[in-house]
């Protein structure tokens, strides 16, 4: 089974947009804390929780307790996406007569806990877990705790109790976003090593300061520490937690308050403030503009691909891109599924497997079994029937479905009917077969032809740019609509993969910022542009935005 990566990703995006819609319509609410736990809830709802929206009281359902109740919009949005109620109901959030109260409430079927008063959810969850034990039920209890909540003594009362009673049918998540209502956690009530310098960014950047896990370990808990925005890490942590017996598990998830929106990220102001309706379209565009970097390991040392995977991991890649070439569809031969199987245990990072092989329908199962998370096949070697078969098999196996076209290939008409459920579309910008080629400039024009087709057929997947992507062209490729970027020589071919990936990200960010400023200008002229810039108060983003605005001639 694959990670179900793009499905989770798409649902997280839907949920984030609903958070914005709901809080904006309400004129209040807590988007920041809803966004920091967005990936956690996305993984739970899409891959782990047992539930039935038609029967919210199903006895054997897993229980989700949102102890950090102020992040209710995040919970409600996921419930809407999961089908508990229509997505339009999110607009009643916090309004008179709504089931969607300011804080989670049993009034809304499917909600397990009335949150609001912080620090109590873990005790409540221990009660639920013990009840399940008495009844010999095997459902699991998941509890999301905020880091500010750890100020409450009751959390530690519950921690001791869970330990005493060996509550292993409970998994807690700590949403460690470093921000509470008044300010940064480390300024209000430090959880980590005392912050000596004035640079608050040390809190989340300097890992040697992090001591929160030690606290939980000393209370007898199994502690797993992860990046709380990485779907694969969350997924793996949940799986590990459920296998851990005789001891409760906490997954300490380092997150970013307001994650996905630059102006909200790490900014305490967005703890309990809703976005104005006039910036909502810009926000939605930014949410649609999340991107992934996918280094292609064949650009490295082919005799030591294990090491190339490790370099991707330490370089903080989003995917590992694996180019499978059979020496027939393309002249070169690289490796097959057995190599992928060998590499799989090295990392949880999604394997973005690009099959440049003849008759992929014959072999796709081998690649699923090898542990691929995304499998892309070429349009040139499938037809409607064989792609249909591949599509269905991948979906059943929770592997994301990719489709690729060569530079000289147009999107075949028969493929249109698959666009709606397609997860990834690779538009090749070099002739596939070997790395180190130059980006074909005509691809920009091709994207202009393809984008309207995708829109017309409700494509909700991600476009991956593959071939000759480098720091010079990545910004314009992003502007064309690509959201995943394969980097060969420009990343894996570099000495320092981490810096190369970072440089890629920075270039995309520049392009994205420009796009968002264009949107602001289009919607509200210079006033809105200035308001948008004014929202960016953390770190040096504001200067960067001003520079882009001057260059664009808006100022």
């Amino acid at each position, binding site marked *: 089974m694959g990670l179900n990566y793009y499905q989770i990703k798409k649902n997280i995006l839907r949920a984030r947009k609903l958070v914005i819609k709901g809080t904006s319509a309400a004129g209040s609410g807590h988007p920041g804390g809803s966004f920091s736990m967005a990936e956690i809830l996305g993984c739970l709802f899409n891959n782990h929780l047992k539930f039935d929206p038609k029967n919210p009281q199903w006895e054997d359902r897993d229980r989700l307790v949102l102890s950090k109740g102020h992040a209710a919009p995040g919970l409600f949005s996921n419930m809407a996406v999961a089908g508990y109620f229509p997505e339009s109901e999110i607009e009643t959030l916090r309004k008179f007569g709504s089931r969607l109260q300011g804080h989670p409430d049993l009034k809304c079927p499917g909600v397990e806990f009335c949150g609001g008063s912080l620090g109590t959810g873990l005790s*409540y969850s221990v009660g*639920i877990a013990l*009840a399940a034990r008495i009844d010999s039920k095997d459902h699991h209890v998941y509890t999301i705790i905020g880091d500010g909540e750890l100020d409450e003594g009751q959390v530690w009362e519950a921690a001791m109790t869970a330990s005493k009673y060996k509550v292993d049918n409970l998994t807690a998540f700590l949403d460690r976003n470093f921000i509470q209502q008044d300010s940064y956690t480390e300024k209000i009530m430090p959880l980590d090593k005392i912050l000596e310098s004035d640079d608050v960014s040390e809190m989340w950047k300097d890992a040697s300061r992090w001591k929160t896990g030690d606290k939980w370990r000393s209370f007898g808990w199994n502690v797993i520490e992860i990046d709380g925005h990485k779907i694969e890490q969350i997924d793996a942590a949940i799986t590990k937690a459920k296998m851990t017996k005789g001891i409760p598990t906490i997954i300490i998830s380092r997150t970013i308050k307001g994650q996905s929106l630059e102006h909200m990220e790490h900014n305490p102001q967005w703890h309990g403030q809703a976005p104005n309706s006039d910036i909502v379209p810009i926000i939605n565009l930014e949410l649609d503009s999340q991107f992934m970097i996918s280094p292609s390991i064949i650009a490295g040392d082919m005799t030591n691909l294990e090491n190339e995977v490790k370099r991707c991991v330490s370089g903080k890649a989003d995917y590992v891109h694996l180019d499978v070439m059979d020496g027939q569809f393309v002249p070169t031969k690289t490796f097959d599924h057995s190599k992928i199987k060998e590499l799989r245990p090295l990392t949880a990072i999604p394997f973005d497997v690009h099959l440049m092989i003849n008759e992929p329908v014959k072999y796709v199962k081998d690649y699923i079994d090898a542990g691929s998370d995304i499998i892309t096949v070429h349009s040139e070697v499938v037809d409607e029937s064989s792609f249909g078969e591949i599509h269905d098999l991948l979906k059943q196996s929770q592997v994301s479905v990719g489709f690729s076209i060569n530079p000289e290939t147009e999107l075949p008409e028969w493929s249109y009917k698959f666009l709606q459920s397609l997860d990834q579309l690779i538009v090749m910008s070099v002739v596939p077969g070997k790395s180190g080629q130059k980006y074909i400039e005509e691809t920009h024009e091709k994207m202009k032809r393809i984008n309207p087709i995708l829109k017309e057929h409700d494509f909700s997947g991600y476009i991956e740019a593959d071939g000759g992507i480098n720091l010079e062209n990545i910004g314009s490729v992003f502007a064309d609509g690509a959201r995943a970027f394969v980097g060969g020589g420009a990343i894996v071919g570099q000495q320092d993969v981490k810096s190369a990936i970072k440089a890629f990200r920075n270039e995309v960010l520049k392009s994205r910022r420009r796009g968002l400023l264009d949107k602001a200008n289009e919607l509200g002229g210079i006033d809105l542009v200035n308001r948008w810039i004014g929202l960016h108060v953390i770190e040096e983003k504001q200067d960067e935005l001003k520079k882009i605005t001057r260059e664009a001639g808006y100022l």
Partner: protein
Amino acid sequence: MTDMRSAYSESLIQVGKDNPKVVVLGADTTDSLKTSKFGKEFPNRFFNVGIAEANLVTMSAGLAVSGKISFASTYAIFLPGRAVDQIRNNVAYPSPFGKKGLNVKLVTSHGGLSVGPDGGSHQAIEDIAIMRVIPNFRVLVPADTIAVSKLIQLMAGEYGPFYMRIARSKTPLIHSESQEFQIGKGITLRDGSDCTIAACGITVRMALEAAESLQQEGISCRVLDMFSIKPIDHKILEKAARETGCIVTTEEHNIVGGMGSAVAESVSESYSVPIKRIGVQDMFGESARDKEVPLLLEKHGITSFNMVKQVKEIRSKKL
């Protein structure tokens, strides 16, 4: 003399046998409240959370939302005192599927001044007032062990949050084994036509003694056991007001917000008559050895002698 805590313990084991859904939680006072006996009988349905009242209450709520009937106990000074937020937000407020609150029963001992030597820090004189203002909670103060046993049975059988306060000291039997108890219904222990004393807890016995003394002087005094403070029995109070014309209330709790307040609120809205509240005079208690407890109660006017005096005074104020 019988012991309310023993009666509580025995009743718990009985309801635990009758209903496997019953679970019991304690906070390092399980020997004192004798709930540890339930733990010996049903080890997997008994949880001692240590000195952690907040956790005690919220865990009870988690068990209750999963279908259990949770009995959580410790001393009245800590519960509600230490955990009002948890009682309100985790027990009273969550209302699944049109029900009111979760199925949690808070039973506390050591209510009022009769706690004795531990002193003012341990004498809960506010618990009734605190619990009375929380929606969905029902509040009971039984007068003897028969009431304790019967009310535990009732609470176990009736859905929803309850608060019940019992006394530390041994108490004489007031009721007969055949006495029926209903939540929300007071009990007329002695009929009378000149005045009514409405009492609860250990003051019921004093009220009966006062009525006996008054009888000697030719004054006919009605005595009500108002063990159900919330919901309160408006009918029995209105009847007493109409038929006896004045009411004295008595309790070992602050006169502000306690049973006396509940009676005054009820009577003023049905058939207003003069009312005198006997109880702790909005001040804290203090240490008194067991044999000195009567002196401490006397300091606050909680004696049958003072009840007699107040009845005589209030009769002169009848409308």
